[in-house]
């Protein structure tokens, strides 16, 4: 007999958590489709999948935030139809989210025991600080913390803050800790510390679900890898079979499928419109980016969430500060101190967050469309309502914006129509470079196709189009070239002949394409 350690554990103990046939639908989308998995005590599960594969929904179900439509969740031998937030916490499931939920104005101890502080007797119910400290110390030791309990959280690095989150999880006697993309914003050295903490948890018999896009980290810590694809279990890899290529293969599934031929006729690429040289962003100030977008092409910008695509777009649009490097438009260097500078040069951005930055929900369609170019709709600085309406009417019929009139409040429109308003305000101004950040997110299929058509029409008219997208099929179907970002840098640029989901994904995780 030659059992490895993990096999013994797996063979001798009942699973702490098991999911069976869990299904969850949202209007128009099946987020999870009969998903099953189990987690044994002391087991580290790597959970991987593309953006939109259903990981977030699964987390919400485990956290008790949403109920599945059907299926069974068994925790510690007790079967449930769905969990509540209290139920999830009470049975020892703890989350450490990508965005940390710490009060950075409080110290470590106060954060760990927030709302559960040990109190002194007496009518004032003051916090018993010495007792608090003695309770926190062993927790910090268990996560290998090198900082003390009275350090303010604002003075900690990201990895240290994550240790605080994990200590918080331990303080509620967690039996399963779910880490959601914990390393996505960590520098490499910090990542190692975090992986050590995971190993320490495992040694204590605590189970871990480790969700990450960084496959080499999954390789290092996971006992078993569960791959999600399109809401279904794409496969499970035992420790011996965990390797990068296997994971990628399961994640995209359609690797062997014939490459999708883009329907659009390829046309001769134009001259370079927008050129970024050694541009560095606030997200990755140590990683210079070079990128050229040509007239008449749609350049897809792919990469995993957090790879620095949005930050790059914001720097190119002048909204974020540029940390070095230069940007040229048609060979002319641009200062780009603000979005106003970019707009004056014909560089436009359709931002990721439509409702917060794309449109002004309280203004009418016409007012939104004229806003960036208001002086052109005014005589002697006085706004001409008729000029505004004329521009808006033209764009409304061009783009097929569905609204009773151009005086309709933009906030009352559907997501797709709001996005068309964002596009309309730029189309009315003769774009040279159009940057679109997740242009079809949250938009129904019909409007999606229209927006693709618009992008192609823009490119055909000589506009340089840069499209950021996390939707693999969109990137491959729409782009003429694909640039892929990985941890703040362009890891590769694919020409049409090399387009494949596999290549994009390989570049996105920092590997060489095939």
């Amino acid at each position, binding site marked *: 007999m030659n059992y490895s350690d993990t096999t013994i554990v797996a063979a001798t103990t009942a699973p702490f958590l098991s999911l069976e046939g869990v299904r969850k639908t949202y209007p128009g989308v099946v987020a999870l489709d009969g998903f099953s998995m189990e987690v044994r005590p002391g087991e580290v599960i790597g959970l991987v999948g593309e953006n939109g594969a259903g990981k977030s929904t699964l987390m919400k179900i485990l956290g008790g935030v949403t109920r599945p439509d059907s299926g069974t969740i068994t925790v510690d031998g007790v079967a449930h139809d769905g969990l509540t937030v209290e139920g999830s916490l009470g049975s020892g499931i703890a989350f450490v989210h990508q965005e940390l939920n710490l009060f950075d104005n409080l110290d470590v101890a106060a954060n760990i025991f927030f709302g559960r502080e040990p109190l002194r007797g007496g009518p004032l119910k003051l916090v018993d600080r010495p007792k608090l400290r003695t309770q926190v110390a062993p927790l910090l030791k268990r996560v290998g913390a090198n900082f003390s309990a009275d350090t303010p959280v604002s003075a900690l690095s990201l990895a240290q803050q994550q240790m605080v989150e994990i200590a918080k999880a331990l303080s509620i006697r967690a039996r399963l800790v779910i880490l959601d993309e914990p390393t996505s914003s960590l520098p490499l050295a910090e990542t190692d510390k975090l992986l050590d903490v995971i190993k320490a948890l495992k040694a204590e018999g605590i189970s871990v679900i480790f969700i990450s896009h960084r496959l080499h980290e999954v390789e290092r810590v996971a006992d078993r890898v569960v791959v999600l694809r399109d809401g279904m279990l794409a496969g499970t890899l035992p420790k011996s079979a965990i390797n990068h290529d296997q994971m990628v293969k399961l994640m995209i599934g359609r690797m062997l499928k014939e490459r999708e031929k883009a329907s659009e006729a390829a046309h001769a690429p134009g001259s370079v419109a927008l050129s970024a040289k050694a541009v560095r962003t606030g997200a990755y100030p140590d990683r210079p980016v070079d990128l050229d977008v040509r007239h008449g092409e749609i350049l897809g910008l792919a990469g995993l969430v957090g790879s620095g695509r949005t930050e790059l777009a914001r720097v190119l649009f002048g909204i974020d500060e540029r940390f070095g490097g230069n940007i040229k438009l048609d060979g002319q260097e641009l200062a780009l101190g603000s*979005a106003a500078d*970019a707009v004056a040069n014909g560089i436009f951005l359709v931002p990721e967050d439509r409702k917060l*930055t794309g449109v*002004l929900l309280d*203004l009418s369609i016409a007012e939104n469309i004229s*806003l*960036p170019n208001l002086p052109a709709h005014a005589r002697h600085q*006085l706004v001409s309502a008729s000029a505004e309406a004329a521009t808006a009417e033209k764009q409304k019929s061009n783009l097929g914006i569905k609204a009773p009139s151009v005086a309709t409040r933009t906030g009352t429109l559907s997501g797709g129509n709001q996005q068309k308003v964002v596009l309309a305000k730029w189309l009315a101004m003769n774009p040279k470079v159009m940057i679109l950040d997740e242009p079809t997110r949250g938009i129904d299929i019909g409007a999606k196709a229209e927006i693709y058509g618009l992008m192609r029409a823009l490119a055909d008219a000589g506009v340089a189009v840069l499209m950021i997208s996390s939707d693999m099929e969109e990137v491959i179907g729409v782009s003429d070239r694909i640039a892929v970002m990985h941890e703040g840098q362009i890891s590769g640029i694919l020409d049409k002949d090399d387009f494949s989901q596999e290549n994009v994904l390989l570049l996105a995780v920092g590997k060489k394409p095939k």
Partner: protein
Amino acid sequence: MSKKDLGLLILILVVGAVVAIINPRFLLPINLANTSNLIGLFGILSIGQAFVIITGGIELSVGSVVALLGTLFIDFIAVREMDWPLAFVLIIVLGAIIGLVHGWLITRLKLQPFVVTLCGLLIYRGVARFYTADGTAGFAFGQNFPELEFLTAGRSYGVPNSFIALIVISIVMWVVLHRSVFGRYLYAIGKNEEAAKYSGIRTGRVVMAAYVICGVLTALSAIYFAMYTRSISPASHGQFYELYAIAAAVLGGFSLRGGEGSLIGVLLGTVLLQELQNLVNLLGIPSSLNFAVMGGVILIGVLVDQQWGVFRARRLMLDATRKGAAGAPAE
């Protein structure tokens, strides 16, 4: 005129009618002239405040600015015997500079408007008191400035010229706020500064301009107040005026979050506030209750407005559900 403004106008007329019935002296020309003079003085101040509030900011220093610039103005023309038009221009420029500094601190150095202008409130008051060595700035016996006095404290056809000045300024500022490119930018920034920035608007400059406008109008009203009281003790002159201005704007339908409010609204708000002051005097209510009456009316006004909004939203939803239920296919 929006529905909100109309409601406010009706309230002003109803309160006026009630006061007139109880005490007919309300309608005497002398009382109306006095009240409209005060409306003129406070109105100019409140319009300035409104331009700042529309951007989501606040200007707490206006009372102290009224004291400081008023003191300086009287000092310039009475003690230093400067030509009054020159002094007038100097004061307006000083007002603009104060606004520019506030705007610069807020937009470039990212300080909070409340903090910046609160410090202004303390600083300008202190400087004004120091400048006169805590004494009173006033005219010497027999000093006369006939043109200036006519323009500021005089009357045309029985109407105070300060009120006429307010009307002229209101018309100009109405056009600026409701018809100009700049006015649209102000509303856009007040509604959502980020989105305005993403539309290529230089939001910093626009916000700074709003503070400059406020500074200029405050300086103008400082001159009017100085010529109205004719002597200024900087320790108390203009105290709480910032609150009158903010109250007028809030009564007039401005949201302190920005992006909401109309010029007619802030005018009507000023009128109502002065009507209430007058009411306290005329109805024999102890003048110590002055502030309490004002506070009470503003609270009730804002409450009614808020509840009306909630009521309307609920009715809309009920209508929608009823329609939805009727439209559902019958089984």
